């Protein structure tokens, strides 16, 4: 019993050290690496790459030309329009098209999807805005809805279900073929947007519905999607050009857009987008879409024109932290590390990151020899210490500290 309690304590200590010690190590020795910022120049029809090096910020293109800040900004007129207008260097036409400031602004959008946005607790309740209130500003409704066995509105003031409204919406959903409950509810639940477009809801049969409220009445549209297509993430957007409702990521890692009003689901000709591993950024302007996937140690930029035809692409890799000096030393020190949080998730779980090399075994063996001498000095029998030695072998420095903080004495 006591022996067992000791083993439990050793386990607790190993967990504690495998969380804390590597964390301190990285805090002390990790050097920052920023992924390059890659944009596409509509003037040069080439990539503009900005990265921080030892000599400061460097701006180049793919042909090896270096640019000053001013030159760089002139190559990206749609992006730096305001700056160029102040400097008086904004061209009137680009690629033969007359540049209207308002139009440039309307067509420009940025989008970012972090991996952690995929792994995050679902609030379960959403506000249904009145999308045609006739008011300039959106107003926060007094009730929130959930879609479980039906669509229910709960009034915040009374914490009671609004029966009539719930029945009305549920009935319409039902009539449109909605299969309760909802798998995911996607929208922009804030009043700080230009206009409300309600929610894109996936039902339990992976059908896609557009649900909003117009003058207090439900508006439900079922979106036709190809057989077997399932979405793992839907990001609704509120862009000024109102061309589409959302970026949709399918289970097959394809990227779709859903056009406004005519509900055409369009698959974009890009590949290799894995939102579970990469941060996805989409910069759109009058001429191009720049779809960037930022992974660990690599980035890729795929350029589409305004009609979604592939134009160009660029990719780059750099050494990840495990390949740099601090990582190489790490491989000799720790068998792995444990963390309760992860930059790719909003959830807290026991994230185990094992050291993929076996270099750490060297330290384990050294520690086993040291432990051997400790045991000898204490005049203990070696056969009573086999578990301790095994713990040190597999958990290295963590196990060594743990078995000595909770020493194996008196156990025969």
């Amino acid at each position, binding site marked *: 019993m006591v022996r067992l309690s000791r083993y439990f*304590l050793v386990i607790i200590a190993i*967990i504690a050290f495998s969380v804390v010690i590597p964390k301190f190590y990285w805090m002390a020795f990790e050097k920052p690496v920023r992924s390059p910022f890659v944009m596409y120049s509509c003037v040069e029809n080439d990539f503009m790459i900005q990265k921080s090096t030892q000599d400061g910020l460097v701006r180049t293109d793919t042909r090896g030309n270096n640019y000053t800040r001013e030159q760089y900004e002139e190559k990206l007129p749609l992006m730096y329009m305001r700056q160029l207008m102040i400097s008086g260097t904004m061209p009137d036409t680009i690629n033969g098209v007359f540049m209207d400031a308002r139009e440039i602004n309307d067509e420009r959008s940025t989008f970012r999807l972090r991996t952690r946005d995929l792994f995050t607790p679902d609030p379960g309740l959403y506000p249904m805005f009145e999308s045609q209130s006739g008011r300039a500003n959106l107003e926060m409704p007094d*009730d929130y809805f959930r879609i479980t066995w039906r669509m229910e509105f709960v009034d*915040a*003031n009374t*914490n009671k279900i609004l029966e009539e409204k719930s029945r009305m919406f549920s009935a319409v959903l039902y009539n449109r073929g909605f299969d309760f409950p909802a798998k995911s509810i996607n929208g922009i639940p804030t009043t700080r947007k230009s206009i409300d477009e309600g929610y894109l809801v996936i039902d339990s049969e992976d059908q896609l519905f557009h649900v909003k409220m117009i003058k207090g009445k439900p508006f439900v549209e079922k979106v036709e999607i190809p057989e077997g297509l399932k979405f793992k993430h839907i990001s609704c957007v509120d862009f000024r050009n109102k061309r589409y409702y959302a970026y949709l990521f399918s289970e097959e890692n394809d990227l779709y857009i859903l056009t406004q009003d005519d509900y055409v689901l369009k698959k974009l000709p890009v590949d290799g987008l894995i939102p579970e591993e990469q941060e996805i950024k989409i910069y759109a302007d009058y001429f191009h879409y720049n779809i960037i996937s930022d992974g660990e140690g690599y980035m890729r930029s795929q350029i589409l024109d305004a009609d979604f035809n592939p134009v160009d692409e660029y990719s780059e890799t750099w050494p990840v932290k495990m390949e740099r000096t601090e990582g190489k030393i790490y491989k000799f020190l720790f068998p792995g590390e444990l963390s309760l949080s992860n930059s790719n998730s909003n959830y807290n779980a026991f994230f185990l990151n094992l050291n993929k090399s076996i270099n750490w075994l060297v330290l384990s063996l050294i520690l086993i020899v040291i432990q051997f001498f400790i045991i000898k000095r204490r005049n203990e029998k070696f056969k009573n210490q086999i578990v301790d030695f095994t713990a040190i072998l597999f958990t290295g420095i963590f196990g060594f500290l*743990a078995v000595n903080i909770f020493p194996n004495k008196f156990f025969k």
Partner: protein
Amino acid sequence: MWKSVIYKEWLKTRWFLIIYAAIGVLAVGRIFLKVQHDFTFNEATNFWYVILFQGYQYFGILKFLPALGGLIIAVSQFFPETVNKRIKLTFHLPIVENKVMIIMMLFGACCLLLTFGVVSLFFYGLSIIYFPHEIIHGALVTMTPWFLAGLAIYFLAALIILEPVWKFRFLYALVAVAFIPSVFFDDTITGGYSPANPVLFVLVIIMSTALLFSGYRFRKGEM
């Protein structure tokens, strides 16, 4: 015999326990006084909104309350045993030593669970007046590691207090300081701990026998 052991533990802890439970109930009262105030002065819908979408934790003052409870119960229960090595009396009772310690541990753990239960029930009972189950569920998931931390701190504090050698007390405290904040109080958002909670639960269960280790070291004459 276990009744007598419990009687002794009760004599040691009763006032601390009653005061602690009162603090817990007052803390919940304070939470809902504020909720009620905010519902009146702000709009209910806005209050729901900041909870659902902006990560506001209306129950935030409960964060370290269970930790405090674990510490209070452990100290009130085990500190008197170490004064003049009074634990010798306990070990001399005609009952198996580990059994006495387990009964003592179970008493403390049950006291904590009872107060946590009272606080949670009170919290839940008031929550269902103001909030839908999604919000309450998020709150309870978020509070679970806090309550488990209370138990973990209780078990580790018992281990540390009963340890006869100061050097090892210090080392155990080091383990506790590394373990508790990084495992139970990591950066999180409301509901974020749901995958970790079952594991934390298992860890807390295995920590419950910790005091047997330092008790055994005492009996073997470590000093």
